């Protein structure tokens, strides 16, 4: 599990390094300071007495998938609205693609792609017509057929948007967000309401978008999604960013513990497990064992090492011995998740 994490992480970093060394297209307004595609400084937005965005600051670098994770009402969408030029920030400064949103939002809008939370498609309009329609809004655009192929919508090209399934709709709205071949794409809860299969396929699509060198900023309240897709995550709660880092770093910092659950052939005393190096806590209930640790690799080696238990066996006089270690079955390792991170920081769960 951990190994897989590291491998994935490294692969991603390598991909990003590759992208960064590639020359940027001429449309890019010169080298963005330290690769910052977005710079948000102390953004504030109130709706009446409610402070939706309360002093939010962060930077997004070129080529990454930047996630904003938080429960409903945390201020994620409002933050995106400000960066997309749909709302003005009352205070602070939003710079997108090196342009201040307060001065030249339209210029920015021409170079970004936006997917809103709702489907947002006109009635009695086919998939092809919708792409053509949005394409007409930009000075330069990608060919409709290319987008239909890329987002696997060719078969549905002549169907009304209103007849599409949830996954197809989201793919279409992604295609619309990319019609102007933007450098930066905003996705607001792209997989909310999708079934697991559609969600998985959409994740692949979003990863492919990053693969094309785009920077992606997305909101989500699914921790699995944030963990799988995002290079860095801003955890938002009640209008503020409460933590910002890579998923691994967030977990390492706020939810470092792993638990190792397994079953043994016959009951063994808690103290046996508690003495295994690296185990912080051992709970035994009959033949079920749960070990809490921050070093799961170390503990696992010991659990599968027969000598761990043979050392104990003579003292118990029961002859469990070597067999005990081999009898470990039904083993599961659960590492910390972003959900745990959120709980650790806010004391509440993401979805309640």
């Amino acid at each position, binding site marked *: 599990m951990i190994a897989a994490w590291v491998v994935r992480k490294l692969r991603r970093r390598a991909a990003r390094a590759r992208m960064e060394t590639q020359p940027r297209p001429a449309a890019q307004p010169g080298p963005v300071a330290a690769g910052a595609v977005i710079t948000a400084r102390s953004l504030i937005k109130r709706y009446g007495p409610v402070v939706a965005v309360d002093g939010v600051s962060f930077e997004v670098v070129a080529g990454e998938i930047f996630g904003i994770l938080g429960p409903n009402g945390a201020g994620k969408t409002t933050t995106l609205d400000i960066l997309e030029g749909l709302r003005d920030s009352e205070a602070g400064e939003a710079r997108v693609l090196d342009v201040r949103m307060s001065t030249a939002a*339209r210029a920015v809008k021409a170079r970004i792609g936006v997917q809103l939370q709702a489907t947002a498609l006109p009635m009695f309009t086919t998939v092809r017509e919708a792409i053509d329609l949005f394409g*007409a809004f*930009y000075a330069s655009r990608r060919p409709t057929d290319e987008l239909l192929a890329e987002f696997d919508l060719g078969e549905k090209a002549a169907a009304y948007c209103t007849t599409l399934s949830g996954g197809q709709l989201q793919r279409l709205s992604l295609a619309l967000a990319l019609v102007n071949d933007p450098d930066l794409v905003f996705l607001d809860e792209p997989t909310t309401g999708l079934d697991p299969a559609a969600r998985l396929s959409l994740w692949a699509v979003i990863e492919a978008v990053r693969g094309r060198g785009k920077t992606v900023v997305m909101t989500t309240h699914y921790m699995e999604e944030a963990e799988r897709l995002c290079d860095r995550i801003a955890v938002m709660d009640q209008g503020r960013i409460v933590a910002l880092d890579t998923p691994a770093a967030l977990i390492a910092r706020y939810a470092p513990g792993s638990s190792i659950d397994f079953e043994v052939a016959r009951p063994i005393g808690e103290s046996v497990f508690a003495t295994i190096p690296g185990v912080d806590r051992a709970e035994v209930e009959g033949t079920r064992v749960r070990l809490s640790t921050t070093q799961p690799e170390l503990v696992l080696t010991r659990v599968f090492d027969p000598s761990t238990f043979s050392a104990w066996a003579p003292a118990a006089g029961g002859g469990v011995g070597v067999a005990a270690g081999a009898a470990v079955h039904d083993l599961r390792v659960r590492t910390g998740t972003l959900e745990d991170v959120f709980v650790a920081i806010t004391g509440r769960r993401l979805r309640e």
Partner: protein
Amino acid sequence: MTAFRAIARNVVRSSFRNRTALLFTIGLAVFFMVIFGVLFGGNGPSVRVGVVDQDRSALSRSFVQQLQRTKGLEIETGSRADEQDRLQHGKVAFLAVLERGFAAAGPDHPATITAYQSSTDTAETGAIAGEVVASTAVGFAVQHHLVGTPGIVIRPPQGVATNNVRAIDFLLPSMIAYLVLQSGINFVAIGLVDQRARKVLRRFLATPLRPAQILGANIVGGALTVFIQIVVLVAVGLVVFGARTHGSWAIAALAVLCGTATFVGIGFLLTSAVRTSEAARGLAALVAFPMMFLSGIFFPIDTAPKVFQDIVHALPLTYLSDALHSVLNDGAGLRTVGVDLVVLLAWAVGCFAIATARFRWE
């Protein structure tokens, strides 16, 4: 401009794919034309004759009663001005005015009836009616021992230029007005509210489009939808129902343009009052239907009570209906309908000003 055209085109295209909306606009207009055309079609077996009794004596009244008993004549009485107006509009084919001194007829001065009849469309029926009235008068004179005196003299009929407006001819301008009203209000109000509720407008705002471009394109698209429907309706009216019109189509088109501006403006105004497209549909019906019945597009409102007429004259549809009937039925020129068009434009400007100020994007 490409973006503007693309949105407007999409509005027109999707409007014509919306079968429910089409059914309630052009579908209903054609349906009304069929229904009312069948109900009030043709002039019936009897000839309508207008009688004006200026003498109001026992004798003159008795003559009118005699006429009323005459088969083949449908007598209506009224003031001279009214009946002359009705003759002019082809509502009666012949007009007989019983002049003063009818009862005091003596050797020196005969009882006089002044006759008017159409010199154009209904000339033939008018002439027949004249014969019938004349023979009735002869019989009446004998009966009342007016023989020996000059009796009843019927002054030779005076030809009056009239338009014989048949039901279908009256209906076509009515249905044009109806369609401008329904289509203008519905396609813009429901279309805009629906796009707002479905966050389409918001999605458009996230593109480099200017807000004015988005609204303008939607409104122009709505107006184009109205125009195309009017063209289809007029073609159906002329070709299928054989409606006859007078006057200039250019002036009629101008009236349609002003009316479209008004009702698209009202539709635009309604969008600030509702959230959902269902509510928009309800409100559009609430505004359109009473106006439709109060503005004399289905039946004349001249005979309605005073209070009622005041309401009628406050409604913009009255002016559109008036202008279209004047032009297409009576061949009126720009001078006659100028006031109507100005009132319509004033409504349009007012609605757009308020609607623009009050429009909410979400």
